[in-house]
């Protein structure tokens, strides 16, 4: 594609007037908002974020120590863009799409500055197979050919937005991403590489209401608080409550076809862990290494703060690009609070009037714009694609009344609230079942009825009802002890304990327990209800609560969830348990 955007005649060179941390002021340069500029003798990458008379205010994506006023600034005239094409998958980038492996080759293990790197390999040859023929009419977004990018993912080459016409030549064969593969009758040439400005959402035909769940394999999420494909979820939680582990589990086990994982201002070692682990993990849905469907962006907490601000946009643009091919994409951003803090830091350097807690007044609109890029859509080529966004939030002191949490909760429809208390009891995932919510069940219930069980929504209501009752009973127990409760309420407590320990708790690191298919989740829930029903009956006919609760088969039922093939054995185990409960009455 040829984007002819250069204005040509304006003076695109200026000089540095002022440097204050990551914010640099340039004078004597024509610039428009969000132009990418090269700052100083080393040509550090920056972006124009404010214009003030003849002064252009620039945020610089690299460390500015040692730069002096008077050094040159060069305006490239482009806006901050990502390179899109085959080669994105399995890659790990910094916040402005520089591949970290390339940076290591050039700089060594420490990230220094002034190095430019292409987002995707420009040399590598891909096998392009044309899917349209000469004489075909193509529109923006039309698929003109495919590339087998990884073992599982077919990369569809699309006509860039804004271009359409009749194909005059198209060739299959080995090409690198910058070679022309197709020519239109109006002279436009199409390569596999296209660029897209990160701050602009990619176009689509229309948004649909979500109707399919994003199956995550985590029981508390899928069963109690489901997220729809194309939906948005927020995970706020204090430190140590398992945000990152939850995000990583989602990246590993959710049934999205493409995963974009953004480590935004978080720990370096966590990204290393992901990098070490993912190539060895097998996607439960395809049997291929997870890395084959993953794009990672790692801008850790000590990497430049302006690049952290950009990382979220880089990620979502890549997600939208795969969505446009008709894929279901899931994007995890860990953590959006660090992104908001980057905005705050830049804003304070600009001496903007602060809003709440020093955050810029536009914080909530930026959050909204970002989450609004999620959705299930009809692509320009008529396919069905989705981007699901899951944003971690790190509220200071775990108090979600702060601006980032509140700004997020106003937009997202799913709230998975992590709880330090549960984490402290080593109840993982530490998602609070009383405070969390999902607004999707209504739109997803039909899917659950059709694909899992007709009574799925009713079972869910029963389970969450029991947890509510338990919370009320616990308040009494705190005062008088559990022995003072009537037997039926003691049984309710026991059933609720089973829900918590057997169903809600899940070991994200266990090879079997980490992923629970939805039909298994349903059967486990039914097993709990079956225990309740049979125990009630047994007690009514004279059984002792203690005998009924302590039948060995129930322990077996619960412990066996760690064994492979549990789904097939669960019915038998439930029968066994019920027989023993019945026997407990007779023994008495």
């Amino acid at each position, binding site marked *: 594609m040829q984007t002819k955007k250069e204005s040509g005649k304006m003076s695109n060179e200026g000089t540095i007037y002022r440097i204050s941390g990551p914010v640099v002021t340039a004078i004597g340069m024509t610039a428009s908002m969000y132009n990418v500029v090269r700052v100083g003798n080393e040509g550090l990458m920056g972006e124009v974020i404010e214009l003030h008379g003849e002064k252009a205010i620039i945020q610089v994506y690299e460390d*500015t120590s040692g730069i*002096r*006023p008077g050094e040159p600034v060069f305006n490239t005239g482009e806006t901050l863009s990502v390179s899109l094409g085959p080669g994105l998958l399995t890659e790990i980038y910094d916040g402005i799409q520089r591949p970290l492996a390339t940076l290591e080759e050039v700089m060594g*293990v420490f990230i220094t500055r002034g190095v430019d790197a292409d987002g995707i390999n420009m040399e590598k040859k891909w096998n392009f197979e044309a899917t349209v023929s000469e004489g075909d009419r193509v529109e923006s977004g039309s698929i003109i050919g495919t590339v087998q990018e990884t073992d599982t993912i077919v990369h569809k080459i699309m006509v860039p937005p804004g271009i359409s016409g009749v194909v005059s030549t198209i060739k299959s064969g080995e090409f690198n991403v910058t070679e022309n593969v197709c020519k239109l009758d109006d002279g436009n040439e199409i390569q596999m590489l296209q660029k897209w400005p990160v701050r602009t959402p990619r176009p689509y035909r229309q948004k649909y209401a979500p109707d399919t769940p994003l199956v995550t394999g985590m029981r508390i999420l899928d069963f109690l608080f489901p997220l729809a494909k194309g939906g948005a979820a927020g995970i706020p939680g204090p430190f140590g409550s398992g945000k990152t582990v939850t995000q990583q589990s989602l990246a590993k086990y959710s049934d999205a076809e493409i995963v974009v994982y953004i480590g935004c201002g978080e720990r370096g070692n966590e990204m290393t862990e992901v990098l070490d682990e993912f190539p060895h993990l097998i996607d439960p849905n395809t049997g291929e290494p997870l890395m084959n469907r993953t794009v990672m962006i790692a801008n850790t907490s000590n990497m430049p703060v302006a690049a952290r601000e950009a990382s979220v946009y880089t990620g979502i643009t890549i997600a939208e690009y795969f969505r446009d091919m008709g894929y279901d994409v899931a994007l995890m951003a860990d953590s959006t609070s660090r992104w908001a803090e980057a905005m705050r830091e830049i804003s304070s350097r600009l001496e903007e009037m602060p809003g709440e807690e020093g955050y810029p007044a536009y914080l909530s609109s930026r959050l909204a714009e970002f989450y609004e890029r999620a959705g299930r859509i009809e692509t320009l080529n008529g396919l069905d694609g989705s981007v699901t966004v899951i944003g971690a939030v790190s509220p200071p002191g775990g108090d979600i009344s702060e601006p980032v949490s509140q700004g997020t909760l106003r937009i997202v429809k799913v709230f998975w609230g992590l709880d330090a208390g549960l984490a402290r009891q*080593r109840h993982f995932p530490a998602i609070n079942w009383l405070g969390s919510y999902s607004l999707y069940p209504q739109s997803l219930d039909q899917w659950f009825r059709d694909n899992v069980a007709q009574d799925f929504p009713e079972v869910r209501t029963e389970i969450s009802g029991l947890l509510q009752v338990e919370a009320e009973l616990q308040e009494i127990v705190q005062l008088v*002890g559990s022995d003072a409760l009537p037997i039926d309420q003691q049984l309710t407590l026991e059933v609720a304990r089973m829900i918590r320990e057997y169903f809600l708790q899940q070991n994200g690191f266990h090879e079997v327990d980490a992923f629970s298919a939805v039909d298994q989740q349903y059967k486990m829930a039914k097993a709990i209800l079956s225990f309740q029903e049979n125990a009630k009956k047994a007690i009514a006919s004279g059984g002792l609560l203690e005998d009924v609760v302590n039948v060995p088969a129930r322990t077996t039922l619960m412990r066996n969830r760690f064994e492979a093939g549990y789904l097939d054995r669960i019915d038998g185990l439930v029968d066994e348990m019920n027989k023993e409960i019945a026997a407990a009455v007779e023994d008495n």
Partner: protein
Amino acid sequence: MTGKEYRTITDVKGPLVFLDKTEPVAFGEIVSLRLADGSIKNGQVLDTSNDLVVVQVFEGTAGVDLTTGVTFLGDVFKLPVSKDLIGRILDGAGRPRDGGPEIIAEENADIIGAAINPYSRQSPHDFIQTGISAIDCCTTLVRGQKLPIFSASGLPHNDIALQIARQAKLTESDEEFIVVFCAMGITAEEYNFFRSDLERTGALENAVLFVNLADDPAVERLITPRLALTAAEYLAFEQDYHVLVIYTDMTNYCDSLRQIGAAREEVPGRRGYPGYMYTDLAMLYERAGLVKGKKGSITQFPILTMPGDDITHPIPDLSGYITEGQIVISRELHQAGIYPPINVLPSLSRLMGGCIGADTTREDHKSVSDQMYAGYAQGRELRGLVAIVGEDALNERDKQLLDFSGLFEDKFLRQNRDEDRSIDETLDLCWNLMQSISTKYLVRLDQQWIDKYHPTDKKE
């Protein structure tokens, strides 16, 4: 530019000096100020433009006036590093404090330090045995980890830090740690305590000390940890040492950060601390770890005192978001006379999962740790209930758990300041204590470990 002296100071405000009209000065450049009496102060450029330069003066601005001469030295702050650093005591700005000679530089390293490429990191997985049961069993320390101590005034965090520095070793090898100790605004008394202990045990010869005391300039504290970490990085990644960095007290560091922020009239964040404090702290804490192709490592042990014992205060809160866990010191346990008063419940080691087990510690470690933790957590909770309904209202299981929580504190947590328990001793001790709970309630233990390690089961 270098060498030219300016006398264009227009404003002096707190630790900041504002100058008019200079040659182009680099952002971050170091500055020397010559006072009327001939004494020299050092500073760094915080903001630079054609018209105005803002300099932060490390030694404070006492004595600075509008005629003070300012020279820009043309370079950013660098620390001369070499192997000779080992065994030396330097002040908070990197000058010898022990009366010894200047450090002959092998190289001059930029103290801000560059971020380690996440792609080039190596996951930490080597178990460090500290000899303290609570840490080894429940919040295992890993080589290359950053694990802070969250303490409060009046608690024995210094003793714990020193005990760890003395006892820390890898079970698999006899490689020793080099200790880089960084004092920020602590009292002379505390410093002497650290120093004499390091001297007494002979550790001083294998240590580098950077010392900024309470009566040293507050602004200098902002560079002291950076110097310490620069030295640590050199020793670890150029000289292949395993380095243990202890810095105390992060709270003083953050207060200096706030002071500068206020002097610059920045928009304050929570409790007056600057909005960029998270990033600033990350630029210290993230200088820990292991990198591919290098033998050495940096393990960090920052100590911070939580103002008002409040773990949600911005300093512990932001630290907790960056570090890989925390060890929380409890006033309640301290007052009960237990040393080390580590509250394992809010404590956490995020890297523990990858470094314990048959290959490194022992096969039953995970199981035992989970059970000890769960038993103690439940026992502690029951104390609240007992206060209301009395012990008689408890059922058998709850009684056992309640008793266990007492034993946990008395036998497991409590140990002498020089008691160095091996991981085997610690885990065996756990099994002994767990005998007080009947096995049917030990639900977190795998049956195979009960069969193999449980003392009474073995006798049967």
